[in-house]
């Protein structure tokens, strides 16, 4: 069971309570909530906020692919996964991503949560523009996406 969405923060904020509602079930004994938030320092620069950009359709496609492959690669069959990523300008401390997972047991919940965030970092077309105290801003360099389908 997967919920995958890009949240335009001009319209709404990412909320943990929605994640909790989605993954809540007596089928599962272990739940993990991972959130990424905007940090005030990066590369020795004082950050005041981040603008997130995304290719929405490709991002959702990547979330779905990552979710599907956890069955074969991790052998985690019964699970609930809630993924939301923000798009737009976020202030310090605001949530940019939630990955909430629920599984039968804690071992698989930890593995699943970690796997999903690491794969999103490698594969989901999302970009960050950092804004600094001196009114400057910079797109972060990032990592080239892997072209698997020629």
């Amino acid at each position, binding site marked *: 069971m997967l919920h995958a969405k890009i949240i335009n923060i001009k319209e709404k904020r990412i909320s943990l309570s929605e994640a909790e509602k989605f993954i809540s079930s007596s089928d599962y004994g272990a739940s993990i909530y991972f959130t*990424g938030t905007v940090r005030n320092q990066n590369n020795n620069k004082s950050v005041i906020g981040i603008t*997130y*950009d*995304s*290719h929405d*359709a*490709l*991002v959702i*496609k990547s979330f779905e692919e990552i979710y599907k492959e956890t069955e074969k690669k991790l052998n985690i069959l019964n699970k609930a996964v809630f993924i939301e*990523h923000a798009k737009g300008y976020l202030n310090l401390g605001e949530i*940019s*991503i939630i990955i909430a997972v629920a599984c039968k047991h804690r071992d698989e919940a930890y593995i699943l949560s970690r796997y999903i*965030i690491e794969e*999103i*970092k490698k*594969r*989901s*077309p*999302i*970009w*960050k523009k950092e804004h600094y105290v001196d009114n400057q801003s910079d*797109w*972060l*360099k*990032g*990592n*080239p*996406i892997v*072209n*698997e*389908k*020629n």
Partner: protein
Amino acid sequence: MKIKVELFGASREFSKNNLIEFEIKNNSTIKNIRDEMINYLDLKFDGNKDFKKIVETSVFCTENNNIVSDNYKITKNQKIAIIPPIGGG
């Protein structure tokens, strides 16, 4: 053929319209689009090396949301997205 390249991430700095249009020959490839973009940056931004590096390290995505290689042939007018190096989360 007319190709619109939709800009994302750092490549949004290439145009205020978030889009660049190119006229290309029939049966052109993604490699030709990449070359056109480099030419555009030479003309508009005096060959800005950082911008050119973005194009060189990007992949491209079709209207059907498939990431395609440099030898992918473009057979009709369409919108292509440039996908610069990524880093969300």
